[in-house]
């Protein structure tokens, strides 16, 4: 178990989680989770299915109220903010988003302006520049008039990213954002997100991608943090064996110099 760096300085806009616990009815799902996501960095949440990654993201995003502990954004407690204020500062990209409504991609992206808009329409152009910029960053400008229902999985994910960016958040929370994407789109999405300079917290499954695009990794098992730190400190063959129950070699690729994980299993060819 790699110890958590406590007492770290949190600059304005960073996310600090302290002793967070949360559960559904009597089942405790998160146990005393503490972690630091410094402003402008990318933090990867790793862990097997059911380890509490999505729950942690939801509690950190303020969508669920914790049973104990706190989540701070800069100096403010996320759960003391009004829903509207929170939505202007934290945007969430869900693992899977579906609707049965006949919306266009442009209309979906425009949903991101809801936290910035008043009750009564204040002219059509509210947020037009922000929306255009969000579409440019997510590379979806050409999709604006397309019907949401006709978009591919990758296009949907990028449209939702544009919607999240239209919220102009300081913090972006991503729940397995690369789930339905092919390799090129996985790399593309994470590279785009990294270049934004936002505080990013992403639940990820792919260990190589996590090592390549994250500044810090936090590993969860059964709702507890079992390791946290820079990718080379966290991603060890012992940890992969311990957390995922898979034998693995962690090495550095000779050309790219990047960390990569090769697993072994006698059932494989």
């Amino acid at each position, binding site marked *: 178990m790699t110890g958590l760096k406590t007492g770290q300085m949190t600059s304005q806009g960073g996310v600090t989680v302290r002793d967070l616990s949360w559960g559904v009815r009597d089942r405790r799902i998160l146990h005393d989770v503490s972690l630091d996501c410094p402003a402008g960095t990318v933090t990867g949440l790793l862990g097997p299915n059911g380890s509490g990654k999505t729950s942690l993201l*939801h509690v950190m*995003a303020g*969508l669920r109220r914790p049973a104990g502990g706190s989540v701070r954004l800069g100096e403010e407690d996320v759960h003391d903010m*009004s*829903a*509207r*204020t*929170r*939505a*202007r500062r*934290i*945007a*969430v990209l*869900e693992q899977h*988003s*579906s*609707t*049965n*409504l*006949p*919306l*266009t991609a442009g*209309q*979906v992206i425009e*949903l*991101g302006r*809801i*936290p910035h*808009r008043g*009750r*009564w*329409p204040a002219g059509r152009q509210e947020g037009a520049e922000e929306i255009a910029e969000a579409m440019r960053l997510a*590379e979806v400008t*050409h*999709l*604006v*008039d*397309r*019907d949401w*229902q*006709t978009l591919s999985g990758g*296009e949907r994910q990028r449209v939702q990213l544009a919607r999240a960016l239209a*919220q102009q958040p300081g913090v972006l929370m991503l729940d397995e954002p690369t789930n339905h994407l092919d390799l*090129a*789109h996985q790399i*593309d999405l994470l590279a785009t997100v990294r270049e934004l300079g936002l505080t990013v917290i992403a639940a990820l499954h792919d260990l190589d991608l996590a090592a390549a695009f994250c500044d810090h990794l936090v590993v969860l098992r059964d709702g507890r943090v079992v390791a946290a730190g820079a990718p080379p400190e966290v991603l060890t063959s012992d940890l992969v064996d311990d957390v995922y129950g898979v034998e693995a070699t962690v090495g550095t690729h000779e050309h790219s110099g990047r960390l990569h994980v090769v697993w072994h299993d006698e059932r494989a060819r």
Partner: protein
Amino acid sequence: MLQAVEAVEAVPPVRRRTPGGWVSGALLSVALLASVVLAVGIGSVHVPVGDVVAVVLRRFGAGIDNVTVIDDRIVWQLRMPRIVGAAATGAGLAIAGAVLQSLTRNDLADPYLLGISGGATVGAVSVLVLGAGVAGMAGGPALSIGAFVGALGALALVLTLSTGRTGDLPPARTVLAGVAIGQICGAYTSFVVMMSGDHDAARRVLAWTMGSLAGVRWSSAVVLLVVALLALLVIVACAADLDAFAFGDSSASSLGVSIRRVRWLLMVGTALLTACLVAYTGAIGFVGLVVPHVIRLVCGPLHRRLLPLSALAGAILMIWADTAARSLVEGQEIPIGVVTAVIGAPVFAYLLRRESRTR
């Protein structure tokens, strides 16, 4: 990556043909005004459009004196309140249906989702059958009060059953609670009607459950209009909140919507709106279910358009349904629920068919 983008761009973007909101709004407003003027003229005594306009202008203080007493009575005293009441009821039911469909993400949701029609029928039946013996009890006001109290009772039961520990109203549980209470109300209604052995009462109960605007006078028309306009104002103020529910609860919450508060406010609010309408007109079906779908198919699902346009379309549909109900068969009223279904179903079927061809 570049290739992927080029491949996507090679596909011509599918433009959704949605008419502008202001254009549709203006067209429907003109149609509503025309419907009012035309429908007032229709009936056992035909009143020409010019005379209708003269009567209305005189009533609003314009210096017009060539209006006959008969015309004034027919247009202003008899038909106008009924038409205003119909418009308000249609508008109210349409927006209630639109809101409940969005909040529960259920296409089959209608204004009676929370047991309102069942409860109102229990109240109305109690007055019609059990109160019939008491002198003067079976009249209009008593019926309305009975229906309103019944609707509120059913709403209270549904809310008690479905409100969670945290005060949330989960759509699935709420719909099921509505069904359960509706069944109980139906059983009570059948039991009372069968046991009373009064054929006239049974007939009146049946007529009530299909709705009628025959009893609407100015006093009730004004109440209906105020209630519908107030509800429209509150609900349109929540238009963006309703849009945020497009991708479900979590997404709405992450867009800054206090989902519990909004859902409670709108579900209970639309239920109260529906209870008021039902108390005066009976449970008129179809308008609340179909009108929002038709508007969505034509003008898209965003609520700042959907809600006002649904209100206008609901008002127009109800005016013509009521006009048909009172004038198609000489000397007899057709239940308005029958008319709304006959007009609404084919329009809806046509639009569904068109939609299934294009998508």
